[in-house]
């Protein structure tokens, strides 16, 4: 276990180092998230739909599609110059490599959310003191689930010719349950309902995360090894 954590931290550290050097994907995902929120804000007729009715949908669409940007680049560096084979030659458990990739993707999505959420509050004129502890918990749990499934599919897609098209096709159907739970929970929380009212959705997200992180750790070897 200690070995897997060491490997995961090494892989995540390397991915973040690469991203800090490039900045392109992070910048693209953040700008994309901001643009989605702007479009939603100006596409809404405030006399027909209240901000609170549309806000959860806008938030979750922003999260899901900016996560796709993050996941699309997750294995790009490995696809060049055989670096994936370099990783696979290391005496490291495949589960550790997978968890490292997940951790890097999660941090990436987290940074995008750190920029997107304040913009979201601003554009939709929401009260930042109402329900945001709960919404933050829902966002974190959802991001873990999205990344757990997406990292596995990203590793699968990167060796194909149409990786950028294939990833959303594989990934988005698995994101639907997270989307349902996220929208349901955040709608209630942003309306000022208590956290206990969304306990079922939170438990669902926790179970989803555990199941897919476990499956991802076990299946990663099948995906990356020949």
């Amino acid at each position: 276990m200690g070995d897997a954590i060491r490997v995961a931290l090494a892989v995540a550290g390397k991915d973040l180092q690469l991203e800090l050097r490039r900045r392109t994907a992070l910048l693209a995902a953040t700008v994309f998230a901001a643009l989605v929120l702007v479009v939603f804000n100006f596409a809404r007729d405030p006399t027909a739909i209240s901000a609170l009715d549309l806000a959860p949908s806008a938030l979750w669409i922003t999260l899901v599609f900016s996560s796709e940007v993050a996941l699309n680049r997750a294995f790009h560096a490995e696809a060049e110059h055989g670096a994936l084979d370099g990783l696979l030659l290391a005496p490291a458990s495949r589960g550790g490599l997978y968890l490292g990739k997940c951790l890097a993707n999660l941090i990436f999505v987290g940074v995008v959310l750190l920029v997107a959420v304040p913009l979201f509050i601003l554009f939709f004129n929401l009260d930042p003191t109402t329900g945001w502890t709960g919404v933050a918990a829902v966002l974190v749990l959802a991001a873990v689930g999205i990344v757990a499934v997406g990292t596995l599919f990203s590793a699968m897609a990167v060796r194909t010719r149409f990786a950028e098209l294939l990833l959303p096709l594989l990934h988005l159907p698995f994101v639907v349950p997270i989307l349902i739970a996220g929208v349901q929970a955040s709608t209630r929380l942003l309306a000022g309902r208590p956290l206990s009212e969304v306990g079922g959705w939170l438990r669902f997200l926790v179970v989803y995360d555990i199941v897919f992180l476990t499956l991802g750790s076990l299946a990663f070897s099948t995906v990356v090894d020949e």
Partner: protein
Amino acid sequence: MQPDAPVLEVRGLTRRYGRARVLKGVDLAVQPGEVVALLGPNGAGKTTLLRVLAGLARAEDGVVLVRGRHPAADPLAARRAIGLVEHRSLLYGELTPRENLAFTARLFGLDGAAVAAAVERLDIGKHADLPVASLSRGMVQRTSVARALLHSPSILLLDEPFSGLDAPSAARLVSLLGARRAEGVAVLLVTHQPEEAWSLITRVAVLHGGRVVVDRPRPSTPAETSRLYHEAIGG
């Protein structure tokens, strides 16, 4: 493992890509301290053989033994035992050689001293902090070799390791490999120009038509090796 047992052994190894059978029953053994030059025409399956031995490709049939054990029995130990240089660098182009080596060191559980020693050994120092993507072919190759040697493997699988190296760098690599051989490291060296590492080579094998058709002690001269090779491949 028996003291005189091969450190690397393959028996009846087969491998197919689509309908093409690339390896058709390869038998080869490498003893500790041996440097086996593996010759063969383009497409003979040399790179495929190295990838199977490194655990990056699966054999369809046959036996692979690393230090007397099937790699699947203890894959982490098998990976620790092997260092691979192949035609791709296996490096991250946007990281520097030092960063690439540091990352590999972390994966192998090594400390920064191993990285510093590798940079020194391969004389990468002046270029160690520039992105790999901006380096010359020779400097990238030196970094690839440094990466393969970083964890002091007991088996080195080298696919054209002298490719892109200038004469002093090639001489340095020969000297490094000589020191490793003296320590008992086994080397399987895929090359089209055995004279580049002539002083190191102890045995010559020729892979042709998916099989090892020659496997013998090194002839006395490169010219004799060349004659032997052309006789074996019928060209």
